[in-house]
C-alpha cells in the first residue's frame, strides 16, 4: 500500500508540475496588448514607454493620453532593463504598439519599422534643436519627434570633495586620483554603474575619437581609446568604484544615500538630488580621456516613433502631432515637472524657468558646450559590440586591441548590411 501511494505521489507531482508549467505558458500568452475594451471614439492606439524613475511620470503620460479625444490611447509602461528587447520583439508581431518612444536608429528605418513623420514636423522644424532634427533624418525624411533631451554627466558631493581636498577632475587621470582619495571605509569614490555602459561613448569622445565618422566608418578604434580602456580597467580594479549597488546608475539613490562621492547620471536626476542633498552637489562633464582630448557629454533623450506596420498609422501620427507638437503645456510639464529634461524646442527651452538657475543652468551649459547627440547610423548591434569591449577589457582582462578588433568585425558586419 505504501508503495502504491508513493507511486501515486510521484505521478501526481509530475502531473501537477506539468499542469502548472502549461498554465504558466498559457497565462504568459494572454497578456494585455491594450486593444481590449475600446470604447468611445473607435480608434484604439497602444503606446510603449520605458519606466521613467520619477514619481508621477506614468500618471502624466496616461493623463495626456486620456485628454486626447480622437482615439483611445493605452499605455504600456515597461521596465527599462527590458525595454529594448521587448520593443524589438513585439515590433515583429501583430501585438506591436502603434507608437513608441525610442532613440533614432537607422536599422528601424531600413527595415521599414518606423513611419515617416516629415509632414507633421516640417511646419515646426525651425523651432526644434537642429541637432535633434539631424539625428532623426535619413535621406531628407524625418522619422521621429524628439520629446526630451537628456544630457549625462558626473554629479559630485561638494562637501566630500572639499573634505578630501580634491578638485573637480578635468582629466581621466585626475578622476581616478579623486576616486582613490574619496574612498573611505563607508563611501566609495565613484559610481558609474556595474556594467559601465553609460560612460562608453563619453570616454570615446573625450579621447578625441567618435563612434562612426561622417562616411559611416569605424572611428572608435584609435590609440587614445585603447589608452582610455586601459585607464578604465585600472579604475575598475582599483577598489575605488562602487560595484554591486542596489540601484542602477540612472537612479541617483547611490549618491543621495552617501554610498559614493561621485556618480555618473543624467540631467533627469537633478530634482531628486536637490531634494536629498540640498545644495551640496555639482556637475562636471566626462573629463579628457587623454591630454589631447576634450571633455564630453552624451546628449541622450527620447523620441516618439510611429510603427510603420500599424493599422492606424494616420491616427497614431495625429496623436503624436497633437501631444508632442501642439500641446506645449504638456510638453513643458513633461520636461520639467518630474525629472529635468531639456525641451528640444527652442520656444519651450526659453520659457523653462526651472532650467535657468543653479546646477540646472550648468547642466544646460554642458549640454550646449560639450554635448554629442545620437548618430542615427550607430545602431543597437554596434552599441552592444562596444559594450562587449568594456565587458571584456575593463571588467575582464582582455587586451583592448583584441577586444576592439572583435568589435570591428561585428560593427563592420552591421555597417555592411545597413550601408552596403
Amino acid at each position: 500500500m505504501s508503495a502504491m501511494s508513493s507511486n501515486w505521489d510521484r505521478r501526481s507531482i509530475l502531473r501537477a508540475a506539468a499542469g502548472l508549467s502549461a498554465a504558466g505558458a498559457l497565462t504568459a500568452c494572454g497578456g494585455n496588448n491594450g486593444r481590449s475594451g475600446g470604447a468611445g471614439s473607435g480608434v484604439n492606439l497602444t503606446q510603449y514607454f520605458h519606466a521613467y524613475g520619477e514619481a508621477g511620470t506614468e500618471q502624466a503620460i496616461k493623463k495626456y493620453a486620456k485628454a486626447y479625444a480622437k482615439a483611445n490611447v493605452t499605455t504600456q509602461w515597461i521596465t527599462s532593463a527590458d525595454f529594448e528587447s521587448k520593443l524589438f520583439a513585439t515590433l515583429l508581431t501583430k501585438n506591436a504598439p502603434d507608437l513608441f518612444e525610442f532613440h533614432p536608429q537607422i536599422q528601424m528605418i531600413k527595415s521599414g519599422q518606423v513611419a515617416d513623420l516629415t509632414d507633421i514636423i516640417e511646419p515646426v522644424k525651425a523651432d526644434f534643436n537642429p541637432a535633434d532634427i539631424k539625428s532623426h533624418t535619413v535621406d531628407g525624411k524625418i522619422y521621429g519627434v524628439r520629446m526630451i533631451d537628456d544630457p549625462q554627466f558626473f554629479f559630485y558631493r561638494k562637501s566630500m570633495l572639499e573634505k578630501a581636498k580634491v578638485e573637480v577632475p578635468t582629466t581621466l587621470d585626475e578622476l581616478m586620483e579623486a576616486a582613490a582619495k574619496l574612498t573611505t571605509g563607508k563611501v566609495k569614490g565613484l559610481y558609474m554603474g556595474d556594467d559601465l555602459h553609460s560612460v562608453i561613448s563619453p570616454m570615446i569622445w573625450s579621447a578625441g575619437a567618435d563612434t562612426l565618422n561622417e562616411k559611416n566608418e569605424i572611428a572608435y578604434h584609435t590609440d587614445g581609446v585603447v589608452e582610455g580602456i586601459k585607464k578604465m580597467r585600472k579604475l575598475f580594479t582599483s577598489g575605488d568604484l562602487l560595484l554591486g549597488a542596489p540601484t542602477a546608475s540612472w537612479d541617483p539613490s547611490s549618491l543621495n544615500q552617501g554610498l559614493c562621492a561621485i556618480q555618473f547620471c543624467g540631467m533627469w536626476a537633478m530634482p531628486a538630488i536637490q531634494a536629498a542633498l540640498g545644495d551640496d552637489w555639482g556637475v562636471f562633464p566626462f573629463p579628457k580621456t587623454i591630454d589631447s582630448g576634450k571633455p564630453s557629454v552624451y546628449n541622450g533623450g527620447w523620441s516618439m516613433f510611429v510603427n510603420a506596420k500599424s493599422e492606424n498609422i494616420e491616427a497614431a501620427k495625429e496623436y503624436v502631432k497633437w501631444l508632442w507638437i501642439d500641446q506645449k503645456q504638456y510638453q513643458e510639464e513633461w520636461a520639467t515637472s518630474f525629472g529635468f529634461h531639456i525641451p528640444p524646442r527652442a520656444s519651450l527651452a526659453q520659457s523653462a524657468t526651472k532650467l535657468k538657475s543653479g546646477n540646472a543652468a550648468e547642466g544646460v551649459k554642458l549640454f550646449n558646450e560639450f554635448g554629442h547627440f545620437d548618430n542615427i547610423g550607430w545602431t543597437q548591434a554596434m552599441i552592444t559590440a562596444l559594450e562587449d569591449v568594456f565587458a571584456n577589457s575593463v571588467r575582464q582582462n582582455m587586451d583592448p586591441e583584441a577586444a576592439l578588433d572583435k568589435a570591428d568585425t561585428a560593427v563592420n558586419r552591421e555597417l555592411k548590411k545597413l550601408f552596403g
Partner: protein
Amino acid sequence: MSTTNTRDLARPAPAKASPAKPRRGLRGSPTFNFWLFTGPFLIGLAIFVYAPILWSLWLSFFEARFTVTPDKFVGFDNYTYMLTNDDFVGSLGTFTAFAAFIVPTTWALSLGLALLVNRLRFMRAFFRSVFFLPTACSYVAASLIWKMSIFSGVRFGLMNTVLDWFGIDNIAWLVDPNPPWYWVVIVSARLWLQSGFYMILFIAALQNIPGELYEAAAIDGAKPGWQTFRYITLPQLRATSTAVVLLLLVAAYQAFDEFFNLLSKTTWGRPPLVELYYKALGESQDYGAGSAGAVILTVLICAVTLLQGKFMGFGRGEESK
C-alpha cells in the same frame, strides 16, 4: 472482499454496455476516444512546439534580420557563422563546465536530503514541505533576492556583512569576474531552487524499496550504513537516478533565468540559451543565426540524451529493477 465490491461498483457501466450495444456509435469508438483525449494536447503540441521548431529550422537557412518571414536564402551560412562564433562555441564550453558540476552536485544533495528526510520519525511532512517549497519559487524572484540582498556588492549585503565580521573586504560578487565569484551565486541559487523537487522524486523511490530487502541483507550480515546504502539502496534507486540525471542535464542545458538576471550584460558566464537570446531575440534581432544556433543546440541535447540513455539504460529501468 470489500475491495472487489467497490471495484465492481466503481465501473459497472462500460463492462456491460459495450456488448449490449452492437451499433458502435461515434462515442463508443476507441479511435474517437483516443483522439478526443489526445487531440487537444496534440494540437497544442503541434502549434506551440512543433510548428516553432520547424519554423526555426526553416529560418536557419535564411537571412532573417528584423523579420520572421524572410526571403533571402543563404544555405548554411548561418550555421558556419554560429559554429565559428567564439561567443556561441564558448557558451557551449561554459555550459559543459556548468553541467559537469551542477548535475552531480544537485543529484548528491537531493539524494542526501531524501535519505535524511526519509529517516525522520517525526515532522517528516514538515521537513519534506520545507525542502520542497523553494521549487515553487520563481527563478527570477530568487535571482533578485540573491542579487539584491544576499550577494549584493555593497557593504551591507548579507554575505559581505558576514565576511566583514572576519575582517574580509567587500566582494563585488556579480560585477567583477576575477576571481569568478559569480559561480558561487549561481550554483547556490540553483541548488536551493532545484534540490527539493528531486528530493521528492528520491523519497518516492526510497519508499518503493521493499523492506524485505533490507531484512534479508541484515540477516546475510550486511552492516547498516554505508554497506547497505552502497549495495541495496543505490542499485534500487537506479531508475530514479537515471531519470533525475537526465532531467538535471536537460535543465542545465536550458539554464536561462538565473544567468540572464544575475549576469545581465556580461560576456562571460553565458549558457547557450542566453547567448542565443542576445543573438536572436535581444537587440540584434538576427533570427537566422539565432535559429541556426537553436538547431545546433537541439541536435546536441538529443545526442547527449540518447547517449546517456544508452549508457545508463533509461527506459529499461523499471524491468531491470
